[in-house]
């Protein structure tokens, strides 16, 4: 594991870059993540789906070369799924086998504990990265339950006592903003809001992830996706992963330029609902989209589609 305690912000930024994760000074991702790591505070990341919130946790685990433990939240998630549960089957078998000589402490020991992600993160010998993904999908009761964990990095198991973190994990919580999170939770976290990337940043992402794609095409793809995000009232804006899929499709098909027929054929790689596709054709259309990509000076070198 890399020495995170002695890392400076510049070294941290360099390490992020080394993993292929692209940041800009304006998006403040690097400095905020650095703060969370150094202050040993959970990092709460909000923003629309598909802008790279979850990726931050994955990248941090790469940077520090530590295991990534993931808790995917959903409606109705409770502590038995998030923290621990007793292995009842095993306990019952033990009771069956040693009816006479069994003490309570024999049954409530670590051997009978099923560790769920939160407990696992506390008990890991080395500092781990814990991703609590889509926290806004849980109930407010679960959120309150997390307070002890996030504030003190400890949990209390009634039968066993308090379990403290051997090494405080780096905790990343993500939220799509479906539900307002409580003040208590927010107060305990360092906060980062991530928006869809700028065209320049997305070009850099495409170039890093699909290096075979020529820069000019990468720029066109990023611009086109930018136009879709900006100009249309889509139910779901195209994510960075979808942009990358689109860029890869361009490469696979051996295209050297975007053309309307190809945009029509591959649109569903970007827009995943019929409603959004309808909005696209009603308000923009492939020809118009490509027309929007023309450079402002209009040097007329490429694809002057549109009327």
């Amino acid at each position: 594991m890399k020495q995170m305690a002695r890392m400076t912000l510049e070294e941290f930024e360099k390490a992020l870059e080394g993993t292929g994760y692209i940041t800009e000074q304006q998006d403040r991702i690097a400095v905020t993540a650095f703060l969370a790591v150094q202050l040993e505070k959970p990092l709460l990341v909000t923003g629309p789906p598909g802008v790279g919130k979850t990726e931050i946790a994955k990248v941090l685990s790469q940077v520090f070369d530590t295991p990534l433990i993931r808790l995917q939240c959903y409606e109705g998630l409770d502590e038995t799924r998030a923290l621990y549960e007793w292995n009842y089957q095993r306990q019952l078998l033990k009771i069956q086998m040693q009816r006479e000589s069994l003490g309570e402490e024999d049954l409530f020991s670590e051997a009978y504990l099923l560790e769920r992600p939160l407990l696992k993160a506390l008990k890991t010998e080395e500092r781990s990265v814990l991703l609590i993904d889509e926290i806004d999908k849980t109930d407010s009761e679960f959120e309150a339950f997390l307070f002890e964990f996030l504030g003190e990095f400890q949990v209390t198991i009634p039968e066993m006592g308090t379990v403290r973190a051997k090494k405080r994990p780096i905790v990343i919580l993500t939220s799509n903003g479906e539900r307002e999170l409580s003040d208590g939770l927010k107060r305990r976290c360092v906060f980062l809001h991530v928006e869809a990337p700028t065209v320049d940043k997305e070009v850099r992402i495409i170039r890093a992830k699909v290096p075979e794609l020529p820069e000019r095409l990468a720029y066109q793809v990023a611009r086109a996706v930018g136009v879709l995000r900006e100009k249309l009232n889509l139910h779901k804006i195209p994510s960075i992963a979808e942009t990358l899929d689109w860029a890869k499709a361009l490469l696979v098909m051996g295209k050297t330029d975007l053309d309307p027929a190809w945009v029509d054929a591959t649109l569903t790689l970007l827009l995943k609902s019929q409603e959004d596709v309808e909005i696209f054709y009603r308000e923009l259309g492939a020809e118009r989209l490509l027309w929007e990509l023309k450079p402002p000076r209009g040097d007329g070198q490429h694809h002057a589609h549109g009327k």
Partner: protein
Amino acid sequence: MRTGSELDRHLIEFAQLLRSLGLRVSASEILDAMQGLLLVGLEDKERVEAVLQATLVKDPNHIPWFQEAFRAYFAPPEHKQAWEAEAAKRSSEHRAKLEQSRQELQFQGRELDIPEEQRLIYAQLPPEEQERMRKFLERSSEGMKLGVPLDQSFQPIVERAIRGSLDYWRRRLEEEGALLPPGSADGVTSEVEKAMREREIQLLARDLKQIPAEEWPQVIKLIRRLSQRLASQVSRRYRAARRRGGVDMRRTLRQNLRYGGTLIERRYKSRHTSRPKFVLLCDMSASMLKYTEFVLQFIYGLSSVASGIEIFAFADHVVRLTDKIHKGQAFSEMVAEAMPRTGSQWGGGTNMAVSLSELIEQFPEVLNKRTVLLILSDAQTLEGEKAAALMGKARRLVREILWLNTVPAKRWQEVPAIKMFEPHCRMYECYTLGHLTNILNEQL
């Protein structure tokens, strides 16, 4: 540690500025900011801003406020002095106007009992209107009744007349967007408020009827997000009710016969699901006309994200819009078709007594214990008492009635029907998107 204490002072002042702008900043967050700054250093302004934002701001909607506050607080001293001077000037003008209104609004040499808010409205009136009001007071002061000069016992009557007139002007100035807020007396705060007005990111706080057409796409996006949130909350309730409700012994025993009766695998009873059904009742009368676009977007937003929402429109008669919306019929068409049946026409008067009684009698299937009835209206109705009684009846049929009222809460006492409706429903003021956000966040 001189620098340390300077830093402390600035941080605390900055946090106070954020608090005065409505952001909640706790002591532990200030401490985090301090530690963050010590870690990152103070050389790079961008980084300082990033550290303060990450530790002091916890809501994306507050980021623009934070950015403006940071710009203003860390501005060069000469700028700050200029803002202070400007704020001081405005504050003294404000006091002078109040004083002037005290001098001018008098009856027989005695000051009228009029709240400060109304005095400020007087100060903003066109000079000819101020003159007209002064003339009225002069004439009344010298007036006669049955040959006897009026005495001071007539002052309350005169006050009522003046208050009524000022109230009319308040509404009119509000409609025209000409009512100026008093503004903060603190230079930096008032600079931030001014910048926010200029950046037009007060969308959430602006009255919906004043949002111009070109900004509607932004508003629609917001409504759609709010609607999605509402829809997801609906399903969250559904899941919460499905939580395991105890061991089902019969099924557990049957399941565990294979283990010789040892209870290895448990089976649980689950509670009956009771997902609330939303019924939306929209007022489409003249007084609501200015909120047409809002009502429309609200309906479309809700119906696009949550299925099974029943939508009705009324002026007096009730018309069911659910099918029309699902068919994607154009709104203008739908209104043209539906409105002759809801009353005289789109924008006519309101009679909620008629509409509620029709809803109860003609659509009994939509009102049951799973129903949450959402009413979107300004409560300006004929037959208020009868309507309130019917509302009470409807309340007994449904789980809950939520009323989104486009009249500001401070004016509710002026609408008599509101008092009658309040016991039967939870009423929220809802004339800005900010209100709608709060209602959806906190109440639903």
